[in-house]
């Protein structure tokens, strides 16, 4: 047994709280962007993930990721109902790892809700994210954080593949199954409350400190580096996005500032504890620029990815995952060197494989799951309900009453 370290434990517990706060932050980030009649529907989908996914995590999720099965594919049932988790060896209690990783499991399916805004039937959404957590998130998290992709040599500090590529691809799969919003492309659907989106951005940025700097499960120099990297990537992500937005669309917008910051945060996630020097600035700026340019993908393909989960999370996740293959620096964390630090192409190749594997796996399983739900209970609300909005049709409430 390794002795418990109170400093590490305190920081991981604190980080769990920070990551928890990101889900309501995401709710308001997305909520401000939908039309007012769908505000409560959006908030509910995100908050509900805190209820459902936490429950699944406690019953079986943690065990299936961190139970020591001896294989790299899936855990076991040793920690069912969180029994005996403190037997896990390490310098923090197993229960601290349970708490921290639980918040990741919660926010990942919640990311999908931005793509399918305004048209998911609530009951079907609940079934979708429940099974998605079990069939997609848990295996992917196992492979990346504690399984064969990690053993192969792919690096993912805080979830660029397991969380952002995974959720981004899943969002695409569900969008293809559920179809576009009524009036997509003909009716204007501008955000109803960008101040709330800005507030949500602030909460996400704040919580991301725990997301990334907590992922080393230690209060040490790597955590400090990860914290600074995270913040800097958000900063240059914002600058990069605003610059191209100003040049290409004419104005630097508040929604652009928010989106660019989040794009930078997404991209630095896999890299946070492995890079240093100018790398976080470059990675953030690259994400800001590339994610803005990726907005055109959904137009070309006629995918109604309503709040740009593909452009921000999928493309941002890919940018970060691949750039890590260039910028990883053993001087920061003693793991691997990327192309720019004399490590050759080995890491880049592993990063590429991890991105493809997680992406293809997530797409296939999510697509099948969404199809099955769609043909049994129906994934989408009917036309009249969509016209009235999610608030009234799904929850019998209104976000704004006089």
């Amino acid at each position, binding site marked *: 047994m390794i002795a418990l370290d109170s400093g590490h434990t305190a920081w991981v517990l604190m980080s769990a709280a920070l990551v928890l706060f990101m889900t309501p932050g995401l709710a308001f980030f997305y909520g401000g962007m939908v039309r007012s009649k769908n505000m409560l529907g959006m908030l509910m989908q995100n908050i509900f993930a805190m209820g459902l996914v936490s429950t699944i995590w406690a019953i079986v999720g943690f065990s299936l990721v961190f139970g020591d099965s001896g294989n790299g594919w899936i855990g076991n049932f040793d920690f069912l109902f969180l029994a005996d988790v403190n037997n896990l060896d390490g310098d923090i209690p197993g229960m601290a790892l349970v708490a921290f990783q639980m918040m990741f499991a919660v926010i990942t399916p919640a990311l999908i809700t931005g793509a399918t805004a305004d048209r998911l039937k609530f009951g079907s959404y609940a079934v979708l994210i429940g099974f998605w957590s079990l069939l997609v998130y848990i295996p992917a998290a196992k492979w990346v954080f504690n399984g064969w992709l990690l053993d192969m040599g792919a690096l993912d500090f805080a979830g660029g593949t397991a969380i952002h590529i995974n959720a981004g691809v899943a969002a695409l799969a569900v969008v293809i199954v559920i179809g576009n919003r009524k009036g997509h492309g003909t009716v*204007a659907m*501008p955000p109803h409350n960008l101040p709330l989106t800005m507030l949500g951005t602030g909460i996400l940025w704040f919580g991301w400190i725990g997301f990334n700097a907590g992922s080393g499960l230690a209060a040490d120099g790597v955590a400090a580096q990860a914290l600074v990297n995270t913040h800097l990537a958000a900063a240059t992500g914002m600058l990069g996005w605003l610059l191209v937005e100003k040049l290409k*669309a*004419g104005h630097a917008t508040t*929604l652009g500032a928010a989106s660019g910051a989040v794009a930078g945060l997404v991209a630095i996630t896999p890299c946070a504890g492995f890079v240093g020097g100018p790398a976080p600035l470059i990675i953030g700026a690259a994400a800001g620029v590339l994610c*803005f340019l990726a*907005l055109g993908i959904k137009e070309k393909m006629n995918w109604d990815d309503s709040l740009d989960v593909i452009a921000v999370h999928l493309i941002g996740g890919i940018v970060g995952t691949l750039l890590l293959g260039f910028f990883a620096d053993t001087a920061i964390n003693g793991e691997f060197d990327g192309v720019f630090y004399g490590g050759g192409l080995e890491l880049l190749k592993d990063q590429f494989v991890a991105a493809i594997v997680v992406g293809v796996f997530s797409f296939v399983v999510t697509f099948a799951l969404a199809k099955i739900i769609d043909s049994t209970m129906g994934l989408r609300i009917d036309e009249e309900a969509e016209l009235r909005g999610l608030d009234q049709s799904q929850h019998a409430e209104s976000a704004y009453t006089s």
Partner: protein
Amino acid sequence: MKLVTAVIKPFKLDDVKDALKAAGSAGITVSEVRGFGRQGGHTETYRGAEYKIDFVPKVSLQVVVDDADVDSIVEAITTSAATGKIGDGKIWVTDVDRIIRIRTGEEGGDAV
């Protein structure tokens, strides 16, 4: 009795209110409205996608006045709401058949 209805730029409301008070108007009713005229709408951009906003926010106000006061009220609104730029709005005057003060039941000129 006449009903004077004006659609004006929202930020001019305070000036118009002051001018109407000075012109002796006993009360006005104000609503926030949206619409378009020759000014047309404007465009907004969200994540690079342009939205044409056809309906521009305006304020509509209504004043009921004695026939004799119509010209001075219209004059007060015209001067106070004008910026000289497109989109200043419109005023129209219509006949009012009856007017009743709910509290007392008074009718006609006494109820204005």
